[in-house]
């Protein structure tokens, strides 16, 4: 935590991999300043290639979304709502001709930054779907793609309920394989903190034991609500088939505004009905074919 200095879980060495401790990320937008140091640190450490410079026109976000070459993504939300107990005045001069809102009233506005990342699901769609066994669960509970095994079939891409993993296109380095956040497994094996958390200047990204972080997240929500952030809530879908996530978030407002699915489901829950239909179709097909030959010969 802030004030702990090098004793913070974001800074000190650890042995979570050796001790098989479930770890997580807790990302808190209420202290994020939108500096994108996490994006840069991630790209630097993991040697993630540059996937092009495009100006999106969407606030200060020119990254767009998570993908094969974007493993951390700082979102910039511009909302016409007050942040906490912030007192808002008029934005600019009152315009009597304005048709959109009462020109004499408050004009609340807030800028929210949230660093998005792979959620490292408890029941991970990508891991279940992977037909090569390239995607595995690590000792610390994270989900890891083994680049040398992946043959780029693309099935994980459509199996992720959060739209995180993607196949890297030509002509980038290691093109054709599926990529996403590794939770800096290589760093963690050496007792280091993931690059994004290590570099975060406000500890908006906190790395640590998952159980500790869940307690910390709940406390932070309570604290914010007491300070007027009535729409603060945790985003951690434990109630759905995803069964909770290792990288969970505090959000202000509804998950949809952050492009987060409100009720994500792991696609394996659809298998039973789909396979039943497939077997029934196979049986019906052979019976129909046999009958056709029996009665129309």
């Amino acid at each position, binding site marked *: 935590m802030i004030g702990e200095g090098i004793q913070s879980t974001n800074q000190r060495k650890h042995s979570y991999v050796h001790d098989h401790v479930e770890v997580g990320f807790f990302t808190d937008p209420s202290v994020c300043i939108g500096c994108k140091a996490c994006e840069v640190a991630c790209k630097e450490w993991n040697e993630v290639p540059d996937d092009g410079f495009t100006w999106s026109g969407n606030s200060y976000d020119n990254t767009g979304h998570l993908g094969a070459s974007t493993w951390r993504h700082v979102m910039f939300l511009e909302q016409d709502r007050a942040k906490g107990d912030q007192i808002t005045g008029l934005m600019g001069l009152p315009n009597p001709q304005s048709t959109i809102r009462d020109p004499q009233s408050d004009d609340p506005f807030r800028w929210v930054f949230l660093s998005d990342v792979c959620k490292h699901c408890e029941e991970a769609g990508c891991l279940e779907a992977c037909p090569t066994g390239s995607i595995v669960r690590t000792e610390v509970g994270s989900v890891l793609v083994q680049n040398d095994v*992946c043959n780029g079939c693309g099935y994980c891409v459509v199996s992720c309920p959060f739209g995180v993993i993607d196949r890297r296109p030509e002509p980038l380095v290691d093109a054709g394989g599926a990529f996403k956040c590794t939770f800096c497994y290589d760093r963690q094996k050496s007792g280091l903190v993931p690059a994004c958390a290590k570099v975060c200047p406000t500890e908006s990204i906190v790395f640590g034991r998952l159980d500790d972080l869940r307690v910390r997240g709940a406390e932070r929500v309570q604290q914010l609500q007491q300070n007027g952030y009535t729409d603060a809530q945790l985003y951690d879908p434990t109630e759905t088939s995803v069964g909770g996530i290792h990288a969970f978030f505090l959000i202000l407002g509804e998950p949809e505004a952050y*492009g987060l699915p409100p009720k994500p489901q792991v696609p394996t829950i659809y298998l039973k009905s789909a396979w039943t239909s*497939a077997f029934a179709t196979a049986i019906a097909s052979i019976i129909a074919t046999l009958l056709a030959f029996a009665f129309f010969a």
Partner: protein
Amino acid sequence: MTSNSPSEKRLEELREQAWKDGVAVGRGVDVAGGPIPRKPGYYGQPVVKPPVWTWEIPIYLFVGGLGGMSAAIALAAAIFHHVDLARAAMWLAAAGAILSPILLIMDLGRPRLFINMLRVFKHQSAMSMGVWILVMFSACVVPGLIALELHALHTFTGAMDQFVRIAAGLLVFGSAFFGMLLATYTGVLIGATAIPAWFLHRVLLPIHFGIAGLGSAAALLELLGHRIAPLNAIGFFAAAIESALLVWLTINKHGAADRAIHEHSSGGLIRTGEILSGPLALILRFLGLVPFAAISFLIGALVSRFGWIAVGKVSGSDPESVFAAERL
């Protein structure tokens, strides 16, 4: 503003418009009188990722379905002593067994690593199950075809011929078993994903792909000269089921969640495909125009496969479809 560049001028116009009307509208303007995004979700960005698959996959869905169900027709033909038809059907099945892996490998991001598919068997991954079904299908079809040809051409006599006959029977049975799974599992493959327009129709998809495969196999055999009543009956059956599926798809709408099936060019492809292989093929068969019915069904089956992959791309890129599906 001193700059005379077109973009600066456009910006000035927008400022003036916003000042005058309180709202600025037009191309590239997402905000209403302020910096508030009006697109759904986060600036309209996709919530799930659309499929990365290219043209190889819809062709594979067509070829695998046709080849797989050909083996089922081969089994029925062999049981009812239509040996020539069984041979032709097994040739089609073998063509499917050879073309399918080529198409699948071509679509991989790293084709040289395709063999990694065979290092695990995962029942919870429809892709893994499909690979093993295809392997077993090929392992039955190729020797099955050889055994069937050896028996039909009377290459051996006596006990050896008996052995070849039994082997052919068993292998054709195996081909039919795995062939029918090959034709239907593809519905599970795209049905058990995070793409709303796909998973909402996960029961319909295996029926559609399986029956389209059966009808395509019968249609192609007819076009190859096997104009016999059983194949015509299968053609009627398949076209009738496809017509029923078209009705089901029209009734079973989920609003914004599966609008990709009913709108856009993707919806057009699905409707075109279903009409060609459903009602149109049915009418042509009633009129006795069997070759036209066969061609209509084949084109419809191919077009609708392209349609379903296109639907996945549209639905996967549409944040509102994900939100709507989760609110259902």
